[in-house]
């Protein structure tokens, strides 16, 4: 029963949402929005809370065992600090909560993001060798895109950015479309398998 009931709920909600797509009645649209927007967001919010509790439990256990104590304590400090700041001073524009967001989280996040430029560039330097036809196409397409998006654009002959735009809008777009068609068909079959109970991995391994 612990597996049968969720499967029945899954089938019911799947059929309801599938049917609602084809109904233009205002009530049908309301139910559609209620489930896809409100229900989803609320359940996701609860799952986030469950995730945070698991994160805290996992870190407290690891700290008590003495594994990476300093780093884990810092992570826990961050998790606890933000709700405390929000509780005391609120989350408006000039609150301490927003100060931490703007001066701690944003710089850290954007620097981590920018750090990947070096690793992507070094991986490209090692891996980009025009040993075959497709590898040469990869190299040329990447080189053209980088050149056309760089500040060198003004110094380059006009046809280079034009070629880069053509490559993006035609051969590159063609492959992207084929991938999207594949994703669409894959999602369709996976959704059908889930609703019909053929695909049950989402139920987990427990009985």
């Amino acid at each position, binding site marked *: 029963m612990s597996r049968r009931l969720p499967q029945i709920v899954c089938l019911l909600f799947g059929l309801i949402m599938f049917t609602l797509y084809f109904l233009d009645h205002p009530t049908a649209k309301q139910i559609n929005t209620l489930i896809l927007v409100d229900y989803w967001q609320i359940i996701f*919010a609860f799952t986030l809370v469950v995730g945070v509790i698991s994160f805290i439990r996992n870190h407290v256990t690891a700290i008590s065992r003495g594994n990476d104590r300093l780093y884990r304590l810092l992570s826990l400090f961050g998790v606890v600090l933000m709700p405390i700041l929000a509780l005391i001073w609120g989350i408006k524009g000039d609150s301490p909560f927003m100060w931490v967001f703007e001066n701690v989280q944003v710089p850290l996040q954007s620097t981590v993001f920018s750090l990947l430029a070096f690793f992507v560039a070094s991986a490209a330097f090692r891996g980009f060798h025009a040993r075959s036809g497709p590898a040469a196409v990869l190299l040329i397409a990447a080189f053209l895109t980088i050149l056309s998006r760089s500040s060198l654009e003004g110094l380059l002959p006009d046809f280079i950015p034009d070629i880069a735009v053509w490559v993006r809008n035609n051969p590159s777009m063609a492959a992207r479309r084929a991938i999207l068609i594949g994703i669409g068909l894959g999602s369709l079959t996976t959704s059908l398998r889930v609703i019909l109970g053929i695909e049950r991995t989402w139920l987990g391994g427990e009985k």
Partner: protein
Amino acid sequence: MAISTITAGLLTLAILSFLYRDNPIYKVAESLLVGVSIGYFLVITWSTTLMDLLFIPLFSEHKISLVIPFILGLLMFGRFFKGTSHISRIAIAVLIGSGAGAAIPAMLNARTLQQISATIQPILLESGWLDISAIVVIAGVLSTLAYFYFSREHTGSFGWVAKGGTYFLMAFCGTTFGYTVMSRMSTFIGRMEFLLSDFLHLTQ
């Protein structure tokens, strides 16, 4: 110098220290980022979702329809106890089932039918010339689909078509790579500008 600039500058340098090698200063900044990000999303989710969409409408405006997601959300906490961990599957079933049901027509329309219709364009222009770009797109879509068709062996003429698909895929990967590098570079330039002008005052 403002304390906010000093904080942001030191944390930026701490993350950049990873370029030398993995070190304790980087790990401190990384751990802080993990904690602060989780705390931030927890507060924002509490405020914009749980308060605005659930607790205020349910308890102040008596919107009874929200009792269902409230109970489903509470079922998620069953995961913390061994005997009740299976009840969280009901909430997951609602998410999975409704997502799958909504995805069938939506994905078929947006991902498949619209992409096919955008591909099938006239190949002869009003001037009487062939539209090379339209031909390239049709050839690219068909050959890339052939490349991903694994129910038939890639040999003979089908193999040649599939081989052609790899060229289009490489063009796609190349442009995507180029855009990724440039977006990361522009963020890096932003951080460098902040470090050199606001934090270190080396440039104006």
